[in-house]
């Protein structure tokens, strides 16, 4: 750590690239930011931490010209600036990697990277230079993506890498990264960190927004905490603990990241999958879920964890294999038959697959079990509908102004709780949680972990699919490790380590068997 401290001293003298003073922004009815200060020096990584809704993304949208501030000043390279569009800020050397992916699916990787900045030869696009330049950007990141591939054929993680490559191609002096690792695996994140260190060395200032506080130690120099749109503090990262940051973010101290388990795993097998195969995607997948336990699915992005869960849920087909609940073999042809059988799947992409975001809270909560709130003619019983909605809002402590609030206006954590509530209302026997805490703030994560633990304690079989290894280790009782569509090991959490799991996940299989 001594090196970092020395670094910080040098940084104190470093040139200030960007300075925000007393910035405020108000949306109808919400004070998104009030009097926020922030500065970024050349060659540093400055992290912004805060819960969802704390104003991090709003602040960055102001810097990049998406929003105009209501008050305060922005000084860039020593001069006050007012950007009114991202084109202006990009031209000035500020690039932003958005949390939501902003790629055009039908264009190639190379075309996306240089969208609206294509190298030209006369009136025509210089395709050869385009490809060569794109390849150089990708190589610099160390990712193996063919620049001629269409973006829509890429995985989420690959899209994220393309976004990053796109931002790098701008040769920006200020680079803003909004949750760049949220869909990356450990390995890919390490690649990104290496690039970040290179950029630092070359004098680029990096604003780094992330929920993953653990990973920050590897790259971050200073950290600014925001809470409810207000500025809380700025510190050198090596002079503050992660716990301090978290307690400033939530305004209280968090003793632990994971709840004390209340469940007691038994040996009784409630759910069993044998030899499940989908050609070209996964093969010979076998695992059991025991009463009272949480089973983790670990593995790299694209190892087939989500695909297996979706096949069991009937969302995708499979070629062979059997699925049994309490010893009775199930015939699953589509999600409806899986739901009938008592299986629930909470998808990794909440907005795209889990919620009707324009619709109200209560409507989403009862969506998977309309029969329970309607009569035999299919007419909705409004009282039962409302009561069911209210029950799960109370039970899961969902923060919403009313039952008729459209879910898109709620935070990620509350949205996830709504999806959990939707499935609880069906009283499922088995629940697959696919990346349940992605993009969710620390406080809400803890609540979701607690809920999962309690569900397991009530005898519901829980499967946790997560790319965050600490989460899998902290929450599951046993862990099935996936590699390229196969389970390479099933480990007891108490007897394994992050290193051992990574070993199996990277394919060096059956060493310890």
């Amino acid at each position, binding site marked *: 750590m001594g090196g970092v401290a020395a670094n910080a001293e040098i940084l104190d003298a470093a040139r200030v690239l960007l300075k925000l003073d007393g910035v405020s922004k108000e949306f109808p*009815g919400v004070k998104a930011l009030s009097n926020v200060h922030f500065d970024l020096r050349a060659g540093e990584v400055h992290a912004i931490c805060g819960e969802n809704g704390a104003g991090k993304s709003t602040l960055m949208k102001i810097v990049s010209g998406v929003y105009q501030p209501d008050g305060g000043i922005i000084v860039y390279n020593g001069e006050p600036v007012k950007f009114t569009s991202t084109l202006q800020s990009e031209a000035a050397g500020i690039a932003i990697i958005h949390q939501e992916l902003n790629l055009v699916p039908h264009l190639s990787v190379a075309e996306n990277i240089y969208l609206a900045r294509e190298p030209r030869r006369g009136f025509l696009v210089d395709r050869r230079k385009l490809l060569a330049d794109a390849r150089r950007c990708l190589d610099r990141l160390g990712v193996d993506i063919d620049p001629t591939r269409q973006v829509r054929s890429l995985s989420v993680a690959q899209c994220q890498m393309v976004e990053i490559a796109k931002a790098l191609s701008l040769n920006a002096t200020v680079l803003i990264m909004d949750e760049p690792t949220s869909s990356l695996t450990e390995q890919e994140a390490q690649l990104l960190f290496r690039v970040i260190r290179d950029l630092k060395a070359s004098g680029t200032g990096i604003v780094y927004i992330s929920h993953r506080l653990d990973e920050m130690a590897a790259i971050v120099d200073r950290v600014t905490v925001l809470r409810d749109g207000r500025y809380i503090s700025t510190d050198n990262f090596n002079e503050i603990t992660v716990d301090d940051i978290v307690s400033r973010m939530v305004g209280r101290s968090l003793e632990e990241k994971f709840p004390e388990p209340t469940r007691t795993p038994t040996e009784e097998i409630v759910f069993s999958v044998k030899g499940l195969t989908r050609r070209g995607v996964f093969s010979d997948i076998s695992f059991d879920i025991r009463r009272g336990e949480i089973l983790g699915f670990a593995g790299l992005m694209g190892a087939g964890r989500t695909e297996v869960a979706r096949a069991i849920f009937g969302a995708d087909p499979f070629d062979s294999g059997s699925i049994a609940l309490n010893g009775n073999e199930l015939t699953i042809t589509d999600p409806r038959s899986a739901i009938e059988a008592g299986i629930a799947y909470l998808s990794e992409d909440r907005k*795209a697959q889990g919620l009707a975001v324009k619709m109200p809270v209560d409507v989403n909560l009862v969506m998977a079990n*309309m029969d329970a709130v309607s009569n035999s003619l299919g007419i909705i019983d409004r009282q039962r509908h409302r009561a069911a909605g209210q029950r799960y809002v109370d*039970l899961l402590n969902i*923060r919403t102004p009313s039952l008729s609030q459209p879910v898109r206006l709620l935070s990620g954590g509350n949205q996830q709780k709504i999806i959990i509530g939707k499935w609880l209302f069906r009283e499922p026997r088995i629940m697959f949680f696919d990346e349940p805490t992605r993009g969710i703030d620390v406080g809400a994560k803890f609540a979701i972990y607690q809920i999962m633990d309690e569900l397991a304690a009530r005898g519901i079989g829980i499967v946790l699919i997560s790319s965050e290894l600490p989460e899998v280790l902290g929450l599951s009782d046993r862990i099935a490790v996936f590699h390229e569509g196969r389970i390479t090991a099933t480990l007891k959490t108490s007897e394994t380590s992050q290193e051992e799991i990574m070993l199996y996940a990277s394919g060096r299989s059956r060493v310890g068997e």
Partner: protein
Amino acid sequence: MAEITNEKPPEAVQVNRLSDRQKDIIQKFAAFGSLVVLAAVFSITSSAFLTVNNGMTIALQVTSIGLLGIGATYVIITGGIDLSVGSVLALAGVVAALAVKELGLPIWIGMLLGILTGSACGVINGFVVTRLRLPPFIATLGMMLIARGVALQITGARAVSGLGESFGELGNGSLFRFESLDDQGFPVVSFPGIPYPVVLMIVIAIAAGLMLNRTVLGRYIYAIGSNADAARLSGVNVTRVTAFTYIVSGTLAGLTGCVLMSRLVTAQPNEGVAYELDAIASAVIGGTSLIGGVGTISGTVIGAFVIGILRNGLNMNGVSAFTQQIIIGLVILVTVWIDQLRNRR
């Protein structure tokens, strides 16, 4: 699990921001308000506008747009579109007329066949959209050409007339018509009655509105338009529900065809050209979003009346048909623009 409570400071709760329900009400009143303004303006400019007779005329003229608009609303809420209704109504009308004239079937059976023809077109649209997975625009564009072609083919492109007085009953009769005879024995109409088509539209609009709002099927229609993937993963039979909306649209087109032909007591294979656009326009003016997930029947009925009153009032003021088109086009643009402004953040 009540003990899962996390002491967390209250989030920046987004007060003051309008809920969608409130927006919905504003939207409805905005459309309704413009309807009232239109009526007021026309009442001033033309003395004949605000009369019971003219009111019934407008209502009668609005029925076809209204009925088609209800079907269009169902389809558009799922995120689809139905371009075939104008042609389907012509086909349905000539099928009903031919069944009566050529096959000698009773009128009500002829009409039923006409309506079922519309349903059949809807079934095919639904099949092509959900099973063959063609984009709704293309699927119903194909049906639009096919249905029109069949209608022209089976009639030899000639109008089917000589259908008899009673074929006109559905289109020209009315409920609660009061007449009396004066001193010379001439009939005096004290109340013109509510035309059957208007009664039909009111009943169907109420039924369709209740179905959308109060039933599981209606809820699924919104859910599919809002997020088809989420709906499927929640166990909704997306295929069947989507197909259902096309069947509703086709059936209502069939019914509209029968009503129109009955009003003219003649079946025209060229009837209803471009009616699908009026139907879509009424839905859109009434606040239905072409992206799907949003829309109400009451809005669509108001939208249909906005178009109907505009046409009627402009006619009375001697505005040419060409100018009318321009004005209605502008009204569509402005209403949707206002809607966009409200939803923009």
